[in-house]
């Protein structure tokens, strides 16, 4: 894209062409380039080669899994019924996608319109994260075609998973509605856009409710397994608060990370408003993330005190727990703190990356690493790892496909009135 820009070719970024005609759908899909130009820039991009390689290996494996069952791509463990697909795909993707409701709340509820340039990116990050968490779930479920059973056919409403299922499904539709404003703008469907905008407050508030509950519920799922999850990662009373509170810095940091990737690799797609405000917004988001992290740090120790588990800290698992806390929370807090104090965007971004890694470590610890701490350590099957990576690659490709096209990072210059 950079090369094209040097040659004076601009991507599609307006409702109308300079001569006043509308863009056709095909032109929009090709970013306003000709087919030749489009294909050439796809081939020029080395990252696409990497994606192609991953897909070439991973997609056949996904098909293989659906033809021959979970048994051929996992270790079929009875003791570790949840492997990487849920341990990473569900338990990590969902907190990293808390960004949608965080920024939605900031802009729409608290009226902080100075965060607006990044609101749509945060909403999209939320939507795609949830969507792909469901994709991971579909790969993991024994009978994925029955996914809708808890909604329409057979109900187990006392189960935490019932709540997770309902809330993720409802929240996904809320997020589709929230992001649809960008889509309606892109296809030029003015009335749909206005209709959704009218319901923004309602959508945002339901987003907060649903997020509070299902982020927490993911933690509560592990409360079913006292004795299987290591006591340091287990807290009957606080598990849901731990998961909910940590999803806040996780979501905010994920937006910082994604926006960093975007500004370095897709700058052509960002408009001046986004580019100019990103540094300021990054620092503000870092402030939010560090407050969330600090609360999280506090309640993590509170839980240890509540269940009087100090003795465990002296064990090997305790050292691992302390590593998670000191790397993922304390170090992140220090880096973010210095970054905010010195207004260093680079440090804020580094801090955000550490926060994201820390949350990943926490979720993997709870779901896989410290799970069954009295038994053996499950190492996922190589095919399971490849499939998890492949789905993540599809996630990135979809993310980029949408960012390239919809007005997420940029605003339409001239708007067609319907």
């Amino acid at each position, binding site marked *: 894209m950079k090369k094209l820009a040097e040659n004076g070719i601009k991507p599609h970024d307006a409702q109308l062409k300079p001569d006043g005609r509308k863009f056709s759908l095909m032109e929009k899909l090709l970013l306003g380039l000709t087919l030749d130009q489009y294909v050439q820039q796809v081939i020029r991009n080395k990252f696409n080669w990497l994606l192609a390689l991953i897909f070439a290996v991973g997609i056949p494996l996904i098909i293989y899994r659906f*033809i021959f*069952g*979970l*048994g051929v791509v*996992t270790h*079929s463990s*009875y003791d570790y*019924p*949840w492997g990487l697909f849920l341990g990473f795909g569900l338990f990590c993707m969902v907190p990293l996608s808390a960004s949608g409701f965080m920024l939605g709340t900031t802009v*729409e*509820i*608290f*009226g*902080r319109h100075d965060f*607006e340039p990044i609101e749509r990116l945060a909403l999209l990050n939320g939507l795609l994260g949830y969507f792909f968490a469901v994709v991971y779930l579909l790969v993991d479920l*024994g*009978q*994925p075609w*029955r996914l809708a059973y*808890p909604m329409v056919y*057979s*109900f*187990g*409403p*006392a*189960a*935490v*998973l*019932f*709540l997770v*299922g*309902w809330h993720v499904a409802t929240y996904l539709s809320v997020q589709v509605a929230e992001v649809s404003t960008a889509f309606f*703008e892109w296809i030029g469907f003015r009335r749909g856009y*206005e209709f959704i*905008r009218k319901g*923004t*407050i309602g959508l945002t*508030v339901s987003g*907060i*409710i649903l997020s*509070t*509950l299902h982020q927490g519920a993911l933690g*509560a*799922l*592990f*409360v*079913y*397994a*006292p*004795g*299987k999850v290591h006591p340091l990662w287990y807290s*009957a*009373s606080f598990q*849901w608060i731990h998961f909910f509170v940590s999803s806040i810095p996780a979501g905010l940091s994920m937006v910082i990370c994604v926006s960093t990737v975007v500004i370095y690799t897709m700058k052509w797609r960002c408009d001046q*408003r986004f580019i100019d405000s990103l540094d300021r917004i990054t620092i503000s988001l870092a402030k939010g993330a560090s407050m969330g992290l600090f609360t999280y740090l506090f309640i993590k120790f509170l839980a240890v005190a509540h269940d009087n588990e100090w003795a465990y800290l002296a064990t090997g698992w305790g050292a691992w727990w302390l590593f998670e806390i000191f790397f993922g929370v304390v170090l992140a807090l220090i880096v973010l703190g210095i970054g905010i104090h010195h207004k260093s965007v680079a440090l804020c971004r580094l801090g955000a990356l550490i926060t994201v890694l820390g949350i990943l470590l926490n979720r993997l610890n709870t779901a896989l690493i410290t799970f069954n701490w009295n*038994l*053996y350590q499950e190492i996922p099957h190589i095919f399971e790892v490849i499939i998890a990576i492949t789905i993540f690659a599809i996630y990135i490709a979809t993310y980029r496909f949408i960012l390239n096209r919809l007005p997420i990072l940029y*605003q*339409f210059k001239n*708007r067609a009135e319907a």
Partner: protein
Amino acid sequence: MSKITRRKFLAGSMAGGAAIAMAPTKKAFGANLGGFPDGMGVLVDMTRCVGCRSCEAACNKEQNLPDPDKSFADYSVFDEIKHGEKRRPTEKAYTVVNRYEPEGSEPVYRKIQCNHCNEPACLTSCFVNAYTKTPEGAVIYNDKVCVGCRNCMIACPFSIPAYSYSSAFNPIIKKCIFCYDTRLKNGQMPACVEACPQQVMVFGKRKELIKIAHDRIRRSPDKYDDQLYGENEVGGTGWLYLSGVPFQEAGFNVSLPNEPIINNVKDFLAIVPMVLAIWPALFTGFHLLATKGKSHGHGDDHSHDGQEEH
């Protein structure tokens, strides 16, 4: 009684009101509180078990399970160690007998199968209500509604449910169902109990088995460890164990709470209706406070920025 009301209430709120219309759910909640008064159980007296594996063979036949990898007369299975653990129930074997060798005593044999809890964790963790605790005491499973999330395997404190991972199109949970379909329903004892040549197991009403067990301990205090495993563990189980050695030496998990597993989740479940009730007003209020006096808090904000540029 207040317990029942509260749980029903919670469940109702979680389904967002819709649950009120869901008749089948009632059954599940009424069913798992303290067990049914006339629920059946089995008392396993491990001091009598010689490890002949007749029960394993009987179970295999009764449940039409595939042929085992090693014959039931092969006692080398007692030395099998996988991932540092002895055998556990699998999709091909709903019950297994393991041998333990505590210091200073003869080897002891422990039969493992579903313990048929009074308040089963598998049942309360299942989001499609695939499990049922029947009035006869069995915890049965409906493979027609199972989605395959395997949350029950996470939740089961005894690590009993197995899953037929190898099936691509109809993988299901495989576990002991107390021979419900073929025997228990008609008041008959399960196949394993009937097959035992050593009278290790007594089939009867759970509450009477508890009396029998305590009688045995009282009459021969030297023979038995002074505990009836399953009487209180995770809310009580239908299958009860007497042992001649301390239970942890026979591979039992002795760190289980006496509370049913679902009690751990109640803290969270209680939050759900609160969040549903309080959040809307709270955040709409925040919105009004934060945006009062400013132009349209929720106006068409993507365009008003744009307009400034013109």
